[in-house]
Structures are given as C-alpha cells and as structure tokens.
C-alpha cells in the first residue's frame, strides 16, 4: 500500500470516528444557526411559512424602544454584576488558597451555593429581598436604616440581581483556586526574601501569573451575564417593575414564544451574537498587554 493511500485511509478513519459528533453539530448546531440567520430576514411565526421581509426586522428593532430598554438593562446589569462577581470569586479563592484548618469544609461551603438550582435560588432571594418581611430589611431595621423596596422599586432591581449573582460565583472561584495553586512557590519565596510584602507579591507575581485565568473568567462571565435569563424570569415576571428587570434574552424569548414573532427573535439573536463577538474582540485587544502567558514569545 502506498504511503498516500495509507494516509488517506487514516484520515477517512479519523473523520468516520468523529462522524457522530460531526453529524450532531451539523444537525443540532449548524442547521439551526443557519436557519435562524435566514429567518431573521423573514416574517415567521413557526406556524406559517416564512415570508421574506428583507431587513424589516432589523429596521423595526432599531426603532423599538423596548429593544433599547432591554439592551441598556442588560449592559447595566453586566457592569454591576461581572466585576463584583469576579472580585468576590478571586478574593474567596485567595482566602481558600491559604493553609488553614478545615480547608475542604470551607471550600465546600463557598462552592455549595453554585449547586442550588436557579429557580430555587430565585424563590429564595424573593423572600430575602422582601421589603416587608425579608431578612435584608429586617437587619437594616435593627441598625436604624429603613431598607428600600428592593423588588418593587425600578432603581433597585438590577443591584438586587447583581448581589444574587455573587451567590453563584463558586464556579469562578474553583477555577481561580486551581490557577492560584499553579503559581510557582519559588517566585513567591524569592520575592519574600527580597523583602516584598503580601500585597506586592500579589500585585507583581500572583496576579500576572493567573492573568490568563482572569481573562478566561472575564470572557465566559461576560457571555454569561449578557445572556442572563432564568433568575429574572422567575423573580420579575414581565420584567416588572416598569421593565426595569426586563433583559435582552427575556425579550427575545417573549418575541419567539409569547408573541410568535420568531423572525424578529432570530434578528435579536444575531445582534446579540455579533455584539458578544465584538465585545470579546475588544476585551482580547485591550487585555493583550495585561495577560501574561508563560512560554509565549
């Protein structure tokens, strides 16, 4: 058998082994993605055949006040929620990276909230934030502060959700923890011998060494917060009060499944995809000078 024929057979075998996955991605990912692009240019309700309307859906979106409202809500939520979650997760990871007694117990305790199902979490926080009987306002009452109407005042709904997001930062924390344990002890010891304090070691050794992980958490976290759905959907039906908690994906979902405007929803999905790509690109560009890859040129 010639060498070329053997290589060809080997390639074919490779593709054949990968074929279940390839078929899966083609049927369940590529086709729906392609179809959604086509439907974004159509009037389509899933019950009637699609009718081409050109760029009408995109034009309608540009003039849709609710679209801009939900986009702004989502961005504000992202700005409130992402940095706080990342900082809290990093802080917890650093604390849990110390050698203290009962460390596995602490790690478990801090990770446990991430395992709570989203719907249960939403119901739980509905009561925590209840302005009349909730634990937050009861504690504030004890120190003489009249707590706000967390769930009923448009100004407080997004901060509420940002606080809740911190509750689930266990996943980020675990990733940070793994990366912190990879920071070479020799660097830290050498710095200590040179007289560097704890903050200087963190600032000049730990953070640069884990910067790829911080960047990874930033990107995945950003994608996650821009697609926030379950908790606000359960806690604030219809984005109440006054659409202050109405987010991009909730409006997209309503268009697709409540108003039967699947074409319009597809256009929204494509705008979201492109926005995330642009934001990721910007983040990658801005972070290129601040992320240190060991072994990179």
């Amino acid at each position, binding site marked *: 058998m010639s060498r070329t024929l053997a290589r060809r057979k080997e390639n074919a075998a490779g593709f054949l082994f990968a074929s279940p996955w390839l078929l899966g991605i083609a049927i369940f990912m590529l086709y729906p993605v392609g179809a959604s692009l086509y439907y974004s240019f159509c009037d389509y309700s899933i019950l009637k055949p699609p009718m081409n*309307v050109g760029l009408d859906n995109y034009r309608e979106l540009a003039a849709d006040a609710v679209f801009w409202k939900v986009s702004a809500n989502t961005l504000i939520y992202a700005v409130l929620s992402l940095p706080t979650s990342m900082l809290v997760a990093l802080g917890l990871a650093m604390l849990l990276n110390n050698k203290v007694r009962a460390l596995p117990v602490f790690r478990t305790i801090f990770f446990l909230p991430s395992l709570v199902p989203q719907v249960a979490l939403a119901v739980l926080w509905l009561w925590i934030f209840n302005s009349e009987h909730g634990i937050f306002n009861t504690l504030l009452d004890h120190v003489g502060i009249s707590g706000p109407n967390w769930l009923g005042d448009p100004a407080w709904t997004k901060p509420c959700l940002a606080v809740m997001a911190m509750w689930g930062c266990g996943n980020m924390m675990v990733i940070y923890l793994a990366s912190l344990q990879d920071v070479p002890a020799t660097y830290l010891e050498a710095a200590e011998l040179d007289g560097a304090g704890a903050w200087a070691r963190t600032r000049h050794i730990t953070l640069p060494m884990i910067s790829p992980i911080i960047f990874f958490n930033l990107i995945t976290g950003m994608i996650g917060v821009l697609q926030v759905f379950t908790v606000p959907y359960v806690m604030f039906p219809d984005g109440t009060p006054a659409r202050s908690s109405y987010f991009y994906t909730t409006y997209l979902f309503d268009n697709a499944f409540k108003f039967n405007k699947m074409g319009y929803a597809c256009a929204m999905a494509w705008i979201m995809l492109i926005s995330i790509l642009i934001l990721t690109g910007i983040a990658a560009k801005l972070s290129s000078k601040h992320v240190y890859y060991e072994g990179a040129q």
Partner: protein
Amino acid sequence: MNLNPLVLPGCAVAILASVWGMERISDRTEPPGPIHIAYWEKWTGFERDAMQAVVDDFNKSQNRIHVDLVATSDVGNKTMFAVSAGCPPDVAGLWGDNVAHYADDRAVIPLDDFCRQYGITAADYIPCYWKLVNYDGHTWALPSTPSSSALHYNTALLRKLGFDPDRPPKTIEELTRMSDAMTFKKNGHLEKAGFMPSQPGNWNWGWGYLFGGKLWDGEDKITTDTPENIRAFDWIQSFSRKFGRGEAEAFKNSFGNVASPQNPFIAGQVVFELEGVWTHNFVHKYAPDIKLGVAPFPYPADRPDLAGSTFVGEDILCIPRGAPHPKEAFEFIRFVQTQPEMEKLCLLQEKNSPLDKVSDHFWKVHGNPNIHIYDELARGKNTIRMPQMGIWPEFSEELENTFDEISLMDVTPKQALRDLQVTMQSKLDRYNARLEERRRLGL
C-alpha cells in the same frame, strides 16, 4: 483496537433508518378498538377532575371514540409547538383571550361546518360568550367554562369599619371614599387597603372600559389616549398618590399567590377587589369563615349607562390544525356543549354556564350562593371582552407596563397613554400589512 471504519457510519445509518421506519409505522397504524382522541387541558386539581367526569360520561355514552384527557402545563405554547411539528392533539383546552392570535396563525381550524352540521348556533349561548369564540367571520372554538367579574368584598370587615355590608358602593366615587376610610398606614407603610387597583390585577389592561373607553376601534386604529382612558388611569394613579410611590407593590410583595391563604384579600388585608367567579372557590378553600359579598363593579357617577360593566372570558375547546381526528374531536366538543354536561362541568368547577338555557336544578344545587350575579352580569349590555386582535399578546404586555409606570408615578397617564398609542399603532399597522401581504402571496 482495530475497528472496521464502516462500523460507525453503519451504526449511524441504522439509527436513522430505525427512526424513519418508526415514524412510518406510527403514522399509519391505528390501534384496534375505539378511536383514541388526545385532549390536552390546562386544568389540574378539582377543575381537571370536573372535566374528567364529563370525559368519562362521553366515553361511556358510546363505544366508537375514547377521549384521553391529559393535564398539560403551559398548554398554549405546547399546542403551538405540536401544531408546528405536525403532531398536535385532537382537542386543546386553551384560553378564549387568544382566539384571534390562534386564528391569524392558523393554529386552529374553523368549526363553522361542524357547527352547521350539528345545529350549534349563536342562539345556544349567552351572546358575549359566543362572540369570544368567533373572529373574522368564523367560529374557531366552543366554550368550556366561562367567567365574569364583579366587585368582591369582605362583609365582616365592612361591618367592623362601620359600613353596611348590604349597601356596597354603586359608583366609583363611593368606592374611592369607602376605600380611603378603610386604608391604614403604619410608619409610612401601607398596612391595610380598602381597594387597591393592582390587587389582584387580572384586568389591568381594561380599566379604561369601566370609564367608557376602548383600546381600539375594532379594525385598524388604536385608541388608548381617549379622554375616558386617561380618566381611568388618572383614577389608578390617585391611589399611588395616597399610598405612596411603590407602596402598593411592596404591600403586594409581602403576600403570596392569589390561589393561596397568603392572598391579601383572603388574609383580610384588602377589603374590596375586582375579581372573577372563581373567587368563591379560593375563599371556600382557604378562608371559609369569610362571608363574601359580591356586587357589580361601580361605575363613574356621571356615566350611569356603564352600570353592570363586567369583564368576561372563557376557557375554550378547539381543534388544532393537523389534528388526526377532527370529526371525532368535534363529537366530543359537541357533547360538552349539551346542557346536562355543560351544567355538570360548571357545577363541579362552581362557575356560571355559557349556555343561554339554564335548568332550575343548576341554580338550586350550585355551590356559589352569588352565582346569579355573575350570570346576570354576563347577560347584561356592558360586557367587556379582551380585544380580538392578533397582536393582543404584545399589546397586553405593553398595557401591563403602562399600568406599572402610571402606578409608580413615573409618568402622567396622558403621556403614557399617548406613547402607548404611537407604539401600538405602528405595531398594528405593520402586523396588518404583513397579514395582507401573506394573503396576497397565498402564504
């Protein structure tokens, strides 16, 4: 491991072939015996049991057709997806509010021919309930159980606060005065309310109708910013001014679901509420000691012609497009429309009947002592139906948001309703234009 390269694709082909083969087989084979009708229904609990009793009667009444009732959550969406996928149930128990939406999307089939064949006409029904299932010149569904709304009040609380429970408010002005006298605040927060427009808030879209307004002209013009609608929402906002911004929402949030003992009306923290015929069931279940008062909802003093205004609605039975046994499905739907079965269903669900003729037995044994009031309201001249328009799901969301903004005093009613007018007119124009284009293209 040496694996023949043909094994994996072979497996994939075998799986696909077996799925295809199963589909072919399942498409063509009917099990022996009676034809099975799949009936998806939204109800659970005692309401489901009531319909099951009617289904059992039907199954016993003949041996050709057997109805299988399946209680289905989120039945509206699931039916739509099933229609889209080409495997819908034979009968779907949906909401009457969305008949136009279902019809425009051709999700259900018109029942005109079946109705003609079986002699079912408008004369069989109380007019408002018949109108609810008719749209664009066709009958798209038939009723299961109906409802009408009224003013409900806690008679003991009324007496305790010095009012005569046998003389409920007749006008909006009287209701407002009584409500003010029954509203109490503590440390700036609402403790008890006489009347609260957002409690429970089932008809936040329709306050304008109680003042003589309308949301559209029935064809192609949105009319949200009429003086009557503005007056209604001014009245709504007056409660926010009295309660304080956000106080009503905070008060409501401190209670639980409507169908629970934590309902503020059932808990005795709200005296009056605009509610439907089902209120009796909640009170009976969660607070049987409450003596419920029911009266027509008040009208503006200068508009006595609006006396007896009531919001009417109904659950409906329809045949989704693509249903495998439409004829047999209609036989079941027709069976539900017979007077004995409809009365059985409405008695078990403790609702009024949508049929024009009602037996003496029905009134005699009905568990709701106020059932006559709901029936009379539904037969009156001021019945209010949700606008029958294809974009109603979107319109109602916009109205809820407008209600919210006005209640929070973020905007004046005049401005909010004008903004809504502009937004919805543009959406309606686009919707109608696309519908017209589809008709032109035959899509």
